[in-house]
């Protein structure tokens, strides 16, 4: 096992193997992973992060592949994070997004990492934020994040991406599906892929109407693409960077940065306080006993939670102080 120093230095030098190792460390929450993330943090904030989300089979992987190729043509280095679902039964996963990302053979300017959700909801894995920071610190100019593709609730990506591309295809649902809250609301750019399919013009027109009617400020552009042939990918790329210019010229970029910084802190507080409370209670068999009483309706969840916070709060505070030193 290599030391934290070696990993951090390797990542900052852009070394592929060190980056890959660091990602594993963060994903598995191995000893030292927090130190790695702490030390690379000053070197983050340079990459532009684009999220692609949408139902399975709409062509996200192929689009990511083509966007990466386009970005390489402009001299940008690319990091790709592709998330696939973990089986709820076995805990295993088949991560198959690389099958459609084959345009970068022999190009060290494209780093692809597949992650399994490992039980996390919302279309990403728990490690996603850390992985994006590592790729950023390793000098990747553009980071493309492909979500699982379960469809309607993949809003997690908003936290990490500067631009969210929602990918749809014609024939997946009527207008009612479209105006449902959730995935369409988070789109900064809409992409109608497989645009040779019947009904694509109609779908694009519906989306345009939706885009015009709902938002204030930025009106999400609608782009038609055929990822496989590459048609329309240049327009998609331009739409993404149009959004970037918009964010940078208004106060919205700052707003997003602040929002994602707060979400980052919240995550860590939850990790430190919530996980530690439950771990301590579990270790002392207090949790088991409490759960028994809860299911027997002898107490209620609010009482139980307060009880645990009272019992372990001061101990956790001391642990946090220890970390801070």
């Amino acid at each position, binding site marked *: 096992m290599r030391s934290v120093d070696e990993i951090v230095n390797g990542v900052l030098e852009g070394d592929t193997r060190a980056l890959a190792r660091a990602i594993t460390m963060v994903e598995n929450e*191995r000893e030292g992973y927090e130190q790695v993330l702490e030390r690379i943090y000053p070197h983050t904030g340079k990459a532009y992060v684009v999220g692609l989300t949408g139902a399975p089979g709409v062509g996200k992987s192929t689009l990511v592949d083509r966007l990466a190729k386009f970005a390489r043509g402009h001299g940008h280095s690319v990091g790709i994070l592709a998330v696939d679902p973990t089986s709820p039964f*076995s805990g295993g996963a088949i*991560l198959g997004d690389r099958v459609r990302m084959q345009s970068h053979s*022999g190009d060290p300017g494209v780093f692809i990492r597949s992650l399994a959700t490992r039980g996390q909801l919302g279309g990403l894995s728990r490690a996603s934020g850390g992985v994006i920071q590592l790729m950023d610190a390793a000098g990747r100019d553009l980071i493309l994040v492909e979500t699982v593709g379960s469809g309607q609730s993949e809003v997690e990506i908003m936290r990490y991406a500067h631009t969210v591309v929602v990918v749809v295809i014609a024939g997946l649902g009527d207008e009612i599906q479209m105006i449902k809250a959730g995935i369409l609301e988070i789109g900064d750019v809409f992409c109608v892929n497989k645009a040779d399919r019947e009904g694509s013009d109609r779908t694009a027109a519906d989306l345009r109407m939706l885009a015009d009617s709902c938002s204030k400020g930025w009106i999400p552009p609608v782009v038609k693409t055929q990822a496989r042939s590459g048609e329309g990918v240049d327009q998609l790329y331009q739409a993404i960077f149009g959004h970037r210019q918009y964010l940078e010229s208004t106060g919205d970029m700052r707003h997003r940065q602040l929002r994602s910084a707060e979400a980052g802190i919240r995550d860590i507080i939850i990790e430190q306080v919530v996980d530690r409370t439950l771990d301590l209670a579990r270790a002392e068999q207090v949790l088991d006993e409490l759960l028994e009483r809860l299911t027997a309706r002898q107490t209620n969840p609010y009482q139980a939670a307060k009880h645990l916070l009272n019992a372990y709060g001061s101990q956790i505070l001391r642990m946090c102080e220890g970390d801070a030193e």
Partner: protein
Amino acid sequence: MERIRVLVAKPGLDGHDRGARVVARALRDAGMEVIYTGLRQTPEDIAEAAVQEDVQVVGLSILSGAHNTLVPRVLEQLRARGAGNVLFLVGGIIPEEDVEFLKSAGVHAVFGPGTSTDDIVEFIKSHVKG
């Protein structure tokens, strides 16, 4: 939490990947994370994917008969990237007389036609900690 990560790859010109898919599913069902990269991968592609994905296991599926050329090339590319220490498995149509050569080249196990997927799972679990 640690999970065993396996790259299942098909070098060379095989026309189908049914066997590789069956193995990939069996490994998933055994709780592993399987990175599958599809047909016609070059040895460089496979080694690069193994490094980027930081897998502990690489499994090649080869039906074409080109294993004696392809396998050493993949191993060479892995070693060139500092990833020569992965558990390295080969499956597919491999004649008995070639097994010795492949093992001497650095292959840890060869799984021919008729191998039970349980045996593959068992072999990986006994050699890699998840």
